[in-house]
């Protein structure tokens, strides 16, 4: 399952969401809720390796980028365990989102 993901994702998930350090990837085992507001995206769920839900807040470059991310999060939310949704705080202050199918 999620153990099959790259190890750095596991480590990144342990970082406190309150400290969204540059270069950090937050991988969700589950996505519980999504909130999009203009360029801001709020995703709540259980980060991989954690036992309790966390909320990651990302400010993307524009609302279009936020829409791309919230759709990926929605897919992960619709099929719990099938996808790993990740948000990365890239160097330079940009955020990226990714959706990866979990190998069964």
């Amino acid at each position: 399952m999620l153990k099959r993901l790259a190890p750095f994702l596991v480590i990144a998930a342990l970082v406190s969401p309150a400290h969204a350090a540059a270069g950090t990837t937050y991988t969700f085992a589950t996505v519980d809720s999504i909130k999009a507001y203009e360029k801001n995206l709020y995703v709540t769920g259980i980060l991989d390796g954690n036992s309790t839900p966390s909320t990651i807040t990302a400010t993307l470059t524009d609302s279009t980028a936020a829409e791309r991310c919230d759709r990926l999060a929605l897919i992960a939310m619709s099929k719990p365990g099938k996808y790993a949704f990740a948000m990365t705080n890239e160097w330079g202050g940009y955020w990226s989102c990714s959706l990866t199918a979990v190998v069964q």
Partner: protein
Amino acid sequence: MIARAIAIASLALVACDLDRSQEPADARAAADAHVRPPDAPIGSPDAQEVPDAQPDAMPLPTDADQDGHIAEQDCDDHDPLVWLSLPYGYRDVDGDAYFVASSGTLCTGGTLPAGYASTAWSIDCDDTDPAIFTLRNGYVDADGDHYGDGAIVTLCTNGILPAGYAYSAGDCAPSDDTRWIDRAYDYRDVDGDKATVVESGTICSGDALPAGYTITAGPLDCNDHDPSVYALLTIYADQDHDGFGAGAASQLCALAPPTGYSKYKTDCDDADVTRWALLAYVGVDLDGDGVTAKATGTLCTAGALPPPYSATLTGNDCNDGDPSLTHYEVLYPDPDGNGIGSPPRAVMCIGASIPAGYSPYGWDGSVPDDDLDDLTIY
């Protein structure tokens, strides 16, 4: 003019002869015997003037050297090259075109000859030596470094001071040709280790400051008499002799700390030789399953964190007291055993395997995949 003078003289002679024609013949002959022959030189015995038999007779103007100047107007009627007496005020005996004051008159050919002058522009300081002619001031330069010493001296020269003299005074080392001028310095480096101490003054030098003196600061030398050391060493007491000290700092001018001291102050336990480095850890692995649980703190170590402490995290052990449980997993009840569970989920602390009756997938009974087609990603 000369011809006219001769004609006048001839007429006078004729007149005299007319007067004398009244004299007896013997008397005239006696008188003629004392007349100087025309070609007789002046001063010759034959030319001695004899009182004329007739006192009122006019003497004939003569020009013995035939230079066109009668004897009365010729300063030397025996030399046809000179006739005019000229005054002079300067002489140049040695012929170096520099003159000395010396006045007199000279029978000349119209102008003063070489070596005489009525005025002089250049005064000779030694008219006996053509090689020297002008005065120069200098100082005795015994060592030949072009800086002299002592009182100023004036020399008769050829325009340049001779060897052994210099134009400049103030040689600070008159007998050492490598040093001649005082130069200022701001730092000393006695031991030559390129580190300096602050000390200013002047030192007798040559073209540059001698070794050991400089105007450029180097690193501060704590011992300028020992080239092997220059930097102050900050040291700390090392009671357990593990190479790491602790406590208050002290300073020593040395290459290495003495026994019982260390230049490191990081000994976290200076009474225990086996521990000296305080290290931070962020995780522990108490059950030894290779997965850490978060725990932060510091530990006094021998340079490396011992188990179960770790400076990095490996996973997130959900139960660090049981090596069979390593991580949290979000699981979904799967009562029908088809491998796909359904909510409500459970976050369980598990090991390598999924507990029976649970699945990591939670969409059983959810919307089919086709229903996701309208979630176009763009």
